[in-house]
């Protein structure tokens, strides 16, 4: 593993409300590496926004630590904290542009905060607008832009101070699928060309799949699992992981009395006709309950839930076949899904 740029250890956050304490995060441990695109996924209310806001201390954690390049944010003076925030850009679901400033002056804003000379910050802003493909909109105002364009301006603004990290809280959730795709493409490009570490918060699996290297699944204030996207997609270990990846479809599968197995494809096997080979070799039938394969980072990934024949001997023959051709599988029961 490369050098972690952000280390989160034993982080917890409790909110004090009139109805008592609300726990939003508990014992979160994560390391985010220099230069990666790290995804955080979870259902609504899982604590994603709270977690990302703890990373730049917009929300002060009630337990644990956040280290940025080895330095604890909690131990910084207000001034140090502000300058650390300048190394961490942030983009939001609602864009949060300044409505009374032109596009160009929006991008200049973070530079103004650090008292960059006007001419210099204008030149830098124009350059960034070119990067995001909006140099012709420099004089426009946010109200005159589409959602996707607003998010591009927000990205340019987040990049103005040459940050090492960009935090994205549901950055594409207010956009249509095509615009989402282009914004994700832009983030990936920025990650590749500028080496900026990107942290993406989302509730959509498709976003993780499209750009992330690693992902953490967060469920009810805790991290359920962390790992490479390709690994988690092919073999989610947590219940919530299976739920997010298999989707609701898996819940609707009706199970009979006979045994079910989950066959896992990890790229190599999915190019072979595994099921039909098995059926031919074992001279038996299987019932495909659920199947999903997809392309993750250039490797085909997927899984399939198959109901084995009622006949014990035939079922064992099928399992034996999978073992001999080294295809991973596991037996599943209804409550596992």
């Amino acid at each position, binding site marked *: 593993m490369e050098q972690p740029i952000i280390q989160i250890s034993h982080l917890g956050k409790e909110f004090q409300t009139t109805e008592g304490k609300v726990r939003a995060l508990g014992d979160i441990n994560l390391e985010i590496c220099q230069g990666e695109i790290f995804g955080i996924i979870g259902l609504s209310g899982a604590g994603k926004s709270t977690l990302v806001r703890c990373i730049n201390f917009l929300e002060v954690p009630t337990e644990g630590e956040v280290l940025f390049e080895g330095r604890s944010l909690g131990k910084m003076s207000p001034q140090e904290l*502000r300058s*650390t925030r300048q190394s961490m850009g942030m983009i939001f679901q609602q864009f*949060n542009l300044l409505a*009374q400033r032109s596009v160009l002056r929006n991008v200049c804003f973070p530079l103004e*905060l650090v008292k960059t000379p006007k001419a210099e910050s204008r030149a830098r802003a124009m350059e960034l607008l070119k990067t995001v493909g909006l140099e012709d909109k420099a004089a426009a105002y946010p109200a005159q832009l589409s959602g996707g364009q607003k998010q591009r301006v927000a990205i340019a603004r987040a990049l103005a*101070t040459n940050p090492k990290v960009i935090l994205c809280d549901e950055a594409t959730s207010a956009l249509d699928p095509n615009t989402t795709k282009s914004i994700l493409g832009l983030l990936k490009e920025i990650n590749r060309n500028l080496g900026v570490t990107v942290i993406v918060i989302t509730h959509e699996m498709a976003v993780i799949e499209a750009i992330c290297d690693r992902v953490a699944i967060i469920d009810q204030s805790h991290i359920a699992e962390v790992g490479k996207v390709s690994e988690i997609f092919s073999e989610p270990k947590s219940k919530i992981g299976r739920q997010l990846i298999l989707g609701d479809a898996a819940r609707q599968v009706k199970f009979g009395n006979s045994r079910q197995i989950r066959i896992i494809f990890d790229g190599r096997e999915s190019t072979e006709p595994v099921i039909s080979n098995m059926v031919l070799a074992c001279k038996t039938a299987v019932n495909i309950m659920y199947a999903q394969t997809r392309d993750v980072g250039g490797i085909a990934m997927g899984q399939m839930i198959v109901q084995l024949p009622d006949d014990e001997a035939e079922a064992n023959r099928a399992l034996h076949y999978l073992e001999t051709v080294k295809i991973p599988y596991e037996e599943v029961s209804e409550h596992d899904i």
Partner: protein
Amino acid sequence: MTFDAATIQMLKTGIWETFYMVFLSSLFAYVIGLPLGIVLVTTDNDGIHPMPVLQKVLGTVINLLRSVPFLILLFIVLPLSKMVIGTRIGSPAMVIPLTIAAGPYVARVVESSLREIDGGVIEAAKSMGASDWQIIWKVLLPECRPSLLVGGALAVTTILSYSAMAGFVGGGGVGAIAINYGYYRYEAGLMWVSVVLLVVMVQIIQEAGMRMSRKGDKRIR
């Protein structure tokens, strides 16, 4: 009623007195009220610099001042005018009670304008490392400019109507003419002329405020 040269001269003087009473009182009321309004918003629990105790105390003092009827406030404050300006009658003496009455009002008007801002924008500024001062000067005030201007028109017209009451206690201006001639001498004609003048002034202030607000608002396509 006769509109001889003397009457017209009197009206002209009245307009000028009203103008400078309202202008100076508005200016001083904003000098006091604008910072207070900013403090009310920023020190609130969900503000950028929570100081709940200060916020509560300030809010209470403002409410107290706002609940004193202006006419009563005039009688209480005029001795202060005598100390500061040396007289308790005439238009300059009225500037002090007007400022004291309007300052807290302006604070509330400013407060309500500043509360209109979208919290996400402040959040974004914070995430870029903005200090509290920078958020006030570069985000809060410029983003709320249109609303502050509308509030400004509201505040100035209120000060104008207060200034008319000053006529009862020896203040000058158009309001004093209306009161002196209409109320005390039953010269209804001159009273109505004064009232129309006040209405026109309110219209002009209101319209100017709205226009400036709309013209500078970049949210409109």
